[in-house]
């Protein structure tokens, strides 16, 4: 009897062992740094929201870790010779979570929603599309106002996320309370500041690659607590590990740490000509801005504040980006040169600079180090720390001399530059204006080949680093930490968590 029992148990254990590994189904728990905003791709604006969408909503196209555009819901696309239209072939047999079929009509409805809904934050991203034509059940033609090299990259993010037209029509502006997309997981539940629960979508077109029953996103703002939760096994993965926690995470054998240089940058924006405050030595004389740039040792800054975990930078792209201008490499500090420039500008005895800075730990630490470095060259920096909403409002209104601020980054190089640099650009808080810059920025937008676009950005970067309306300091690294039971995760520079092909083994 006892033997029979043992035999049965052994058989059962054996069966479990056989069915384990990739087929092992599990609820994946991922800790986010903050809570997402409204879960409607057309209305949302937060980074963590996009992490949730990576599991919830498929896009027309996706990117590779090297920023190539690859098919997702669109299987192929052709741009007309004059660049004024893009025709896309769409994936067949795709369903939204409510059972609505995905087709060209759905794409047309999605683009219309993004462009016309009052609350849409996607309007500027899809500005170049003048109309859509449904040319077949699974073929759509996007008519453009003119050539737009940035469009596909926009469609690789929220502007290209497809929501169910049925659900969107029914819910209107409240769609985000119960989002219906076509991604690998469907929306189950949300408790604000507590959790967002998604469940595996059985009819997903790529369901074979999805190995989790559900995903739960938990906002845990404190980085130490995020790591402690991972170590205690309460969560399986976390995003944005603090650089200061790296040593501890690396020392734990059961934790895997992975990172990727982000697409964005952090730096200092100067007020060149935004209102009365733009009329100051720092806004009027580029030699002062150059002097500050020479005074900063960016590599040392990265070592001191981030234990070397981030990427020091001097351009709006990290040096790992294909768009980086290699003829303008990152250099160490040159205090003598900084002093010479100050003397030339008539400030041999030193000069004051007031910089506004967001009142959180990292920006303050960065600026304190910059402050110390600048002091060696005779630049006396005063830091005014402001809560972020205030900083942004003051910067936009021109009530600043210099502002420590960054940009989360876009796949297309246009997103990191155009609206900051052209006259009248929506993000040009410096009110920088240079006709040559406008010309280059606009040309890069419409140039048909990557090589041609790169040439324009290379030329623009030379002017940008000479005029320095934005002084670049470093690029954040996205750092993920996860249990070593998780296999197959790929780090992307956009900071998203893509679960296709990711497995769990215990």
């Amino acid at each position, binding site marked *: 009897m006892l033997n029979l029992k043992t035999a049965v148990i052994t058989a059962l254990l054996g069966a479990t062992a056989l069915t384990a590994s990739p087929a092992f189904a599990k609820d994946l728990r991922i800790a986010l740094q903050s809570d997402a905003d409204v879960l409607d791709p057309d209305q949302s604006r937060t980074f963590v929201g996009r992490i949730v969408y990576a599991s919830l909503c498929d896009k027309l196209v996706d990117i590779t870790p090297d920023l190539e555009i690859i098919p997702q819901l669109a299987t192929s696309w052709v741009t007309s010779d004059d660049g004024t239209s893009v025709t896309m072939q769409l994936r067949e047999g795709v369903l939204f979570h409510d059972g609505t079929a995905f087709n060209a009509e759905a794409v047309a409805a999605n683009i219309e929603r993004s462009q016309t809904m009052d*609350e849409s934050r996607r309007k500027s991203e899809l500005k170049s599309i003048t109309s859509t034509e449904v040319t077949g059940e699974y073929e759509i033609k996007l008519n453009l106002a003119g050539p737009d090299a940035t469009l596909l990259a926009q469609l690789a993010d929220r502007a290209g996320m497809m929501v169910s037209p049925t659900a969107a029509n029914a819910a209107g502006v409240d769609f985000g309370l119960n989002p219906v997309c076509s991604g690998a997981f469907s929306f189950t539940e949300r408790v*604000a*500041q507590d959790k967002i629960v998604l469940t595996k979508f059985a009819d997903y077109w790529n369901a074979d690659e999805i190995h989790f029953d559900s995903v739960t996103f938990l906002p845990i703002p404190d980085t130490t607590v995020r790591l*402690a*939760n991972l170590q205690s096994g309460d969560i399986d993965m976390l995003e944005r590990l603090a650089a200061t926690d790296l040593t501890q995470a690396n020392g734990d054998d059961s934790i895997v740490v992975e990172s990727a240089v982000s697409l964005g940058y952090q730096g200092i924006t100067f007020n060149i000509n935004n209102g009365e405050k733009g009329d100051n030595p720092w806004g009027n004389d580029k030699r002062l801005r150059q002097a500050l740039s020479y005074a900063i040792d960016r590599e040392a800054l990265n070592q001191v504040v981030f234990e070397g975990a981030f990427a020091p930078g001097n351009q709006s792209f990290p040096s790992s980006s294909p768009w980086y201008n290699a003829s303008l490499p990152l250099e160490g500090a040159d205090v003598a040169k900084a002093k010479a420039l100050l003397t030339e500008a008539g400030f041999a005895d030193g000069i004051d600079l007031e910089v506004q800075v967001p009142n959180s730990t990292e920006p303050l630490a960065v600026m304190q180090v910059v402050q110390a470095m600048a002091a060696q060259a005779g630049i006396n920096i005063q830091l005014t720390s402001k809560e*972020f*909403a205030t900083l942004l409002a003051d910067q936009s209104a021109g009530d600043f001399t210099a502002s420590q601020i960054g940009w989360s980054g876009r796949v297309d190089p246009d997103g990191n530059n155009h609206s900051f640099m052209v006259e009248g650009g929506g993000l040009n808080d410096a009110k920088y204006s240079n006709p040559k810059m406008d010309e280059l920025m606009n040309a890069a937008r419409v140039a048909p080949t990557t090589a041609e676009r790169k040439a324009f950005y290379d030329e623009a970067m030379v002017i940008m680093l000479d005029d320095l309306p934005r002084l670049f300091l470093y690029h954040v690294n996205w750092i993920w930490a996860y249990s070593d039971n998780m296999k197959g995760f790929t780090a992307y520079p956009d900071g998203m968590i893509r679960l296709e092909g990711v497995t769990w083994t215990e």
Partner: protein
Amino acid sequence: MLPFLFRRILIALPTIVLISIFVFALQKLLPGDPLLVLAGEERDPETLALLREKYRFNDPIWMQYFAWVGNALQGDLGVSLRTNQPVTELMGQKLPVTIQLAVMSMIFALVIGIPAGILSAVKKGTATDYIANLVALSGLSIPNFWLGIMLILLVSVKWQLLPASGYVPLSEDIWQSVRTMLMPSFVLGTALAATLMRHTRSSMLSVMNADYVRTARAKGLAERVVILKHALRNALTPIVTLTALLFGELVAGAVLTEQIFTIPGFGKLIVDAVFNRDYAVVQGVVLVTAAGFIVMNLFADMMYFVLNPRLREQ
């Protein structure tokens, strides 16, 4: 007692109206433009204008206030600017969490604070008194966030005894729910216990010298009865007020503790709302917690009647 209660409620109403005006006016004074944050990183001017119109930011402030009060009286506190969720629904999600945390913390505080207070008063000047004082003072002076992180590292990471953070609703799994709440309520409870202990001690000390305590002892009553029945009962009145106020504070949110243990309660709700300039949420939460405070005060007043027979006769 009834006329008294009626008078108190009559005083409470204008207080709530004043609070609502204050909250509304104060947050409009906050620097920064909420729409710049809400419009998204691109800050498209067209979107900005549409949103400004939609959320009535162009109206004069008094019109905005009356529109809000009008809706609030019908039970509609508006919609979160950030997540589009109705404010009443958000609070409905948070209230059980906050109340559970408050009740559990209060249990810790009472169970530790009052006996320790009595003990150190009765054994005044002895080693017991000093130790109780030392413990109470450390409870007061150790910052909650530090104690919280230390507990997580020790209890959850090292010993793996309790979940590190998060929240499980009571309705889902009672045992798990209490387990996840244990550390945060302990952290909050110890800090409150310290306050309670000090007050119980001083209140007991003043009562212990009263004539009726001497009389009770002279009657030959057992020391236990003298302390618990005669002294404590009279010493309790100020403690009840304090407990009610502390409880009101707990409901208003224990921001740091909630942040460390990622408990989705009122404190986290309001702090996040302030940083995101989510006006509707700030207004709603402050209004409701202020009302909660006033109710707790009323409750404390009523408890006096129960504890003090002399008041009942008046």
